[in-house]
């Protein structure tokens, strides 16, 4: 059983590494140079991919929170806390790459553009989630509170999205065409490979983070059993 899991992890990590290399190659060599924005637009592929992973990670935390409240099992809490950490990393990357992209294109590092703003709001929400976890001593109560906060937080995310979008919008609208970038098939291919690569990266990181937490649980148990001298 353990060996099988090890093999699976290795396959996952290798596939992730290969996909990342492919995505990187495609971003720089395969995707065409965007007509109006130039090479800086290439940041878009990783920007969107990390935004997707951030959002997906918080969704997993939301579901794990429900799982924890229903079942009360430690493994759901481990899933929630592992996913939130990865989500925070990727959403931070989204905000930073967004600012880097905004500077040459819009002339400023920060604009209150809806998608960038919702990423920043999510970043703040899940920083609060982490602070909450750090501020509760009892592991059982920490898991319970975090699950509740993870659920309330994720329930307000779509509302934040609508509110901010309605508040103002100047983002290049890639999905519906609209104003902004002209999207060629090569660009779509590159985006799809980037999304796949980042999703595999998320899965690999999640798996490792869960293993780390399990090991630390096992260690705590061993320490508790050992007579102190």
């Amino acid at each position: 059983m353990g060996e099988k899991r090890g093999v699976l992890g290795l396959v996952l990590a290798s596939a992730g590494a290969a996909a990342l290399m492919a995505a990187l190659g495609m971003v720089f060599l395969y995707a065409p140079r965007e007509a109006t924005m130039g090479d800086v637009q290439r940041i878009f592929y990783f920007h969107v991919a990390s935004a997707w992973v951030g959002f997906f990670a918080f969704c997993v935390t939301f579901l794990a929170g429900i799982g924890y409240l229903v079942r009360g099992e430690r493994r759901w809490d481990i899933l929630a806390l592992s996913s939130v950490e990865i989500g925070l990393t990727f959403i931070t990357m989204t905000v930073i790459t967004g600012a880097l992209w905004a500077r040459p294109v819009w002339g400023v590092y920060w604009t209150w553009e809806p998608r960038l703003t919702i990423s920043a709001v999510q970043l703040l929400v899940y920083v609060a989630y982490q602070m909450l976890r750090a501020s509760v001593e009892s592991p059982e109560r920490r898991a319970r509170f975090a699950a509740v906060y993870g659920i309330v937080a994720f329930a307000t995310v779509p509302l934040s999205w609508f509110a901010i979008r309605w508040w103002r919008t100047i983002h290049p609208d890639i999905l519906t065409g609209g104003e902004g970038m002209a999207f060629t098939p090569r660009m779509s291919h590159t985006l799809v490979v980037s999304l796949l690569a980042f999703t595999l990266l998320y899965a690999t990181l999640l798996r490792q983070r869960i293993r780390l937490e399990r090991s630390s649980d096992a260690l705590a148990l061993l320490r508790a059993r050992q007579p102190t001298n």
Partner: protein
Amino acid sequence: MSFLGKVWAIVVKDLAAELHTREMVSAMLVFSVLSLLIFSFALDLRGAMARAAAPGVLWATVAFAGTLGLSRSLTRERQTGCIDGLLLAPVDRSAIFFGKALGNLIFMAVVEIVLLPLFSALFDASLLRPGMLLVTALGMVGYATVGTLLASIAVNTRAREVMLPVLLLPLAIPLLIAAVQATSGLVEGASLGEVGGGLRLLVVYDLVVVAVSLLTFGYVVEE
């Protein structure tokens, strides 16, 4: 005792406690007036600029003052051990939640009743409109609901009161955007129909947080 009777009993208890000490409402009121002054100084609000800023300043003030009251309300429960008594009593968890949330809503409403004429006078913006009653009510229902849930969490953490604004404010962003937009519209003389977008968002926010709070409050207070 009916469900509503139980909810009302908790509200009456909170009102009685507040009438004794008057610490919560008075602190929220003084804080609100101070915040109003500080915003006026910081942004140098006069004339047309004051009118334009009034909705934002109003809701920022309500949000910050709200965290003060919510923290106090739940800390008092904990310090006096009253929450343990409530949990032992044969009442539904949802009755306790509605009672606490309704109490907090009433305290915030008292503050708002003082704030609205004060804002109208100082910022020369006519906030005393029938439509404002609806926007204010919808905004405060959502804020008091999600605030009561998160304050119940915050008082049981190590950081206590410090935790509440950190937890609450990022989740209140959609509510604040909708409320400020609707209020701005009304101040500029728009009809209720014209600020329908903001109102709809407030209604949806209220429904979502009431539903989620009811489903999760039991897990927050269970020991």
